[in-house]
């Protein structure tokens, strides 16, 4: 299709969509109304499962099966990106020159790196209580690791980032989620059914399997992100044709 025809098609479709969408918006229940039947049931179910963070409860308990799918979307996308970014036979690696780092940046990075990693673990571990969880904490962990690149250089980052180990960790974490689901199937009769003690409401060990699944997702997200970023950074810095 030619470019002009494509733009014309867009405008026709956009006008149609806009008209229908505005009508639909005006027919929606008013914004901020008190009618949230699913939300109310989810809150009641989450409190019954002794999970204070109801969003985590929805993601890892009530809709755990959907999150399994989401995990595998993530896993597959990371796998695809790594395959696309791998070095081909006609490419070679040139070592990047070590860059100069300002002493203040080096100091800030060295101090921040452990702090950010501890924060990441904290965010993963408290997913059943406070905002956070495996997805957010995993991203914090992965980005925190890259402070090594800012504070030192690429060779240091490569040393603190064992790529082969993380690739295995990613697969193991994705598999652990499915395995926990199977344990629920065998022990309690349905996939991802909670088999762990529910614990005390508001304590770190509460919500049954929610913290365990959060930990698996945290490991998976952190390692997938590090591996994918490694592929992109290699392409941007090292690999030449």
């Amino acid at each position, binding site marked *: 299709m030619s470019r002009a025809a494509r733009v014309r098609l867009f405008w026709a479709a956009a006008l149609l969509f806009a008209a229908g969408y*505005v009508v639909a*918006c005006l027919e*929606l229940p008013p*914004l901020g109304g*008190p009618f949230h039947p699913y939300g109310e049931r989810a809150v009641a179910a989450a409190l019954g499962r002794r999970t204070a*963070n109801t969003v985590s409860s929805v993601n890892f308990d009530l809709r755990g099966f959907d999150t399994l799918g989401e995990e595998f979307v*993530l896993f597959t996308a990371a796998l695809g990106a790594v395959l696309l970014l791998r070095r081909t036979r006609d490419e070679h690696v040139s070592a990047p020159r070590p860059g100069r780092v300002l002493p203040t940046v080096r100091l800030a990075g060295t101090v921040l790196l452990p702090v950010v990693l501890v924060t990441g673990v904290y965010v993963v571990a408290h997913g059943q209580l406070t905002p956070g969880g495996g997805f957010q904490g995993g991203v914090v962990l992965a980005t925190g690791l890259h402070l090594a690149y800012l504070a030192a250089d690429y060779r240091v980052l490569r040393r603190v980032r064992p790529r082969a180990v993380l690739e295995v960790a990613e697969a193991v974490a994705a598999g652990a989620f499915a395995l926990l689901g199977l344990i629920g199937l065998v022990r309690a009769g349905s996939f991802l059914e909670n088999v762990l003690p529910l614990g005390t409401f508001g304590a770190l060990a509460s919500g049954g399997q929610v913290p365990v699944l959060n930990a698996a997702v945290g490991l998976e997200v952190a390692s997938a992100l590090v591996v994918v970023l490694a592929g992109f950074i290699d392409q941007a810095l090292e690999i030449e044709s």
Partner: protein
Amino acid sequence: MSALPYLAAGWMLLVGVHGLVTSRNAVHAVGCLTVVQSGTYVLLLAVGYRRGGTAPYFTDIPAGTPVVDPVAQALTLTDVVVGAALTALLLALVLQTAKRHGTTDPDALTGLRG
């Protein structure tokens, strides 16, 4: 202002798709796709919003307090994560295309080449 967030979400979708349709650079097109996705976040959270409700965490509020809809928030969370995975995969594809064909203009990619 009851329809404002819904309309803003629709606007973000249209603006993003327009950028996508008129894009001459595949990297820019992927950026436009993230704009489209931002519209879906706004729409989902607007549907789940509840006037006077607090965030749905019962760590230090008593049970029975009105909260915003946690199901809509969980869906948005899934949306954000899947969006990031999609961005990474698409950018890897763009990079591979640029290597093989020496261009990032989608219109210059005619026919298949190994």
